[in-house]
């Protein structure tokens, strides 16, 4: 029996107080996610239950933590930070691979009332800089191997006081602002005075990309727990005896909302594989730990499909009870494939960094329409809006903008230092997702695409503006335009159209040089997978690059009105 029971009944009778009651929260109470994800579970008698099974590179390195361990160790990290003078409201960045210190550290930061700012460890120094500068981050917790990226930008970050290295082996002299903290050697803090955060206290700052401008810091609050707890329970169907594997990195919102908070607030055992992708390694991981609930992404699922059916048969994957997907639309073929290979479909879920929790999904126990995003979570008012009037469209199968009436607990509260852009996300009382879809006669949503130029590659948003700006810093590049191009595995990848300064030659060596330049400066995600050399870029008569002409060319779409295109 699925946790959700009857979806229809919940539609009639929904109130977020369902989650509040289950969590023992009353309006106005202290609510601290760090406490709810560790101390509370211990108080429920699950101190010795395994909270985290972590496996590093190569299956010989395995660590296990009970709920009491994560309670005490998050206290320990909290106490250490507090000892440095970090306090409520300060931003503390987590810049690490998927090591235990990342997961437990997030709870420690929340326990002192500070705001956790997890960042993807593959970010290049420029991507790191704009996010740390915007947040005014006071401390960053990292690994030795990533510390050099921080050193490169340190002189431009006056607010950054501490670079806390969790795995320093003492082989090298510590550099400016570096201090060493070993979680396994630190004195364990059994009792800790947790900061009394309230519902609207800041909790997590995740950065996301838009079409224009720099990345935006999406501010969430401790009350987001209410949505994350209930969606983890009803959509991911997490149950007490589950072994749960969320493959997302906590540098992205899925990795915190469901890779940490949802699972641990429910007292579930979760496992983490801190390694790269390989079909064999992933199937082995599921078999080894008898994973029952698996939450992954379409890019990974399509990569598994590409690896073939034979490899699946080499492993015993019978432990899988429920599987779900998030990040970008899950194509129907992947749903049909998973039914054939695992005996169950991947349940697609739809949400965003800004929504903080699952908004539309296929629900356990209900019919899955392959290729559909599913139905809105109970209690949410969702609609498709006309892009001009921002009024709901009631016609079946007519495209429009996906929007939600606020409010729900996990909704972002602002963009950090960018309230103006935040306000633009709302029209007529609707939160605008920036995504387009249709609704069929049964109320199921069907994804169409973005309503802007943002590139969704492998479930991660990349700003064309950010890549174009970085390209212009390459000495050979005169002009650039960046669009998405279709990709079988990642749905979309970054493609750049480039003109070069006189004296530079457009050739394969130059292409490789530019690709690596962007990969190191921004991230591998932002690296153009293809560069097309141009003599000139299509522009309007006023000189604005017509990105949509290039996009249409890549996607085989109608170019549309080009009356404003500049003539030779």
């Amino acid at each position, binding site marked *: 029996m699925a946790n959700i029971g009857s979806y229809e009944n919940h539609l009639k009778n929904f109130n977020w107080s369902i989650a509040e009651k289950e969590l023992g929260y009353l309006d106005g109470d202290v609510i601290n996610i760090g406490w709810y994800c560790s101390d509370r579970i211990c108080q429920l008698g699950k101190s010795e239950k395994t909270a985290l099974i972590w496996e590093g*590179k*190569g299956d010989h390195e395995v660590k296990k933590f009970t709920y009491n361990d994560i309670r005490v160790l998050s206290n320990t990290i909290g106490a250490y930070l507090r000892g440095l003078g970090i306090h409520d409201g300060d931003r503390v960045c987590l810049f690490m*691979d998927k090591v235990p210190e990342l997961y437990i550290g997030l709870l420690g930061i929340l326990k002192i009332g500070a705001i956790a700012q997890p960042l993807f460890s*593959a970010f290049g120094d420029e991507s790191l800089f704009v996010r740390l500068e915007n947040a005014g981050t006071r401390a960053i917790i990292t690994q*030795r*191997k*990533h*510390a*050099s990226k921080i050193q490169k930008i340190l002189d431009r970050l006056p607010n950054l006081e501490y670079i806390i290295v969790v795995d320093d082996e003492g082989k090298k002299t510590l550099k400016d602002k570096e201090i060493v903290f070993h979680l396994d050697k630190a004195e364990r803090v059994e009792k800790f005075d947790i900061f009394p955060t309230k519902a609207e206290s800041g909790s997590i700052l995740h950065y996301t990309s838009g079409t224009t401008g720099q990345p935006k810091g999406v501010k969430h609050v401790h009350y987001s727990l209410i949505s994350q707890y209930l969606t983890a329970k009803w959509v991911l169907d997490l149950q007490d005896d589950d072994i749960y594997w969320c493959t997302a990195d906590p540098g992205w919102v899925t990795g915190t909302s469901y890779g940490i908070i949802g699972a641990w607030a429910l007292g579930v055992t979760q496992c983490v594989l*801190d*390694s*790269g*992708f*390989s*079909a*064999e*390694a992933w199937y082995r991981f599921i078999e080894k730990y008898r994973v029952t609930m698996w939450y992954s992404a379409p890019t990974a699922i399509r*990569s598994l499909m*590409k*690896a073939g059916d034979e490899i699946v048969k080499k492993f015993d994957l019978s432990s899988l009870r429920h599987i779900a997907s998030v990040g970008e639309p899950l194509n129907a073929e992947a749903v049909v494939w998973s039914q054939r290979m695992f005996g169950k479909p991947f349940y697609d879920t739809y949400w965003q960094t800004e929504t903080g929790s699952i908004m539309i999904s296929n629900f356990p126990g209900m019919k899955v329409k392959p290729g559909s995003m599913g139905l809105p979570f109970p209690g949410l008012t969702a609609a498709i809006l006309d892009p001009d009037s921002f009024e709901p469209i009631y016609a079946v199968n007519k495209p429009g903008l996906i929007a939600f009436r606020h409010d729900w607990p996990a909704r972002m509260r602002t963009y950090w230092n960018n309230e103006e852009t935040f306000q633009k996300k709302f029209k007529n009382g609707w939160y605008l997702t920036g995504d387009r879809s249709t609704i069929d006669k049964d109320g199921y949503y069907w994804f169409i695409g973005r309503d802007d130029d943002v590139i969704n*590659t*492998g479930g991660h948003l990349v700003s064309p503006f950010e890549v174009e700006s970085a390209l212009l810093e390459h000495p050979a590049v005169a002009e650039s335009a960046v669009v998405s191009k279709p990709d079988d*595995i*990642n749905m979309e*990848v970054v493609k750049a159209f480039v003109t070069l300064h006189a004296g530079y030659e457009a050739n*394969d*060596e130059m*292409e*490789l040089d530019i*690709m*690596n330049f962007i*990969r190191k400066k921004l991230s*591998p*995600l932002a*690296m153009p*997978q293809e560069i097309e050399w141009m003599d000139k870029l299509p522009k309007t008569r006023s000189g604005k690059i017509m990105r949509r002409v290039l996009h249409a060319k890549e996607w085989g779409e109608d170019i549309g009105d080009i009356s404003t295109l500049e003539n030779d």
Partner: protein
Amino acid sequence: MPDLHEMKETILKYVINEYAEEDDDVTFDTPLISGGLVDSFSMVSLKRFLEVKYKISIPDDKATPEVFDNVNKIAALVKDYL
């Protein structure tokens, strides 16, 4: 045709310079993709390096994460296309 050992050394040096972080210990057998050293996006730039360096063309369907998973395997792949 380049000597196989020399080719491995060249590829290893490139991987260390381009993808390894401080303290990463990379050898001919180190898992690059499954070990998380080179992600699937970066694999495209590694493939392009091999094509530029050895003046070959590797079909996309042959450039799988499994074949790119260590320097030994990559060198064997390159040899096939020389």
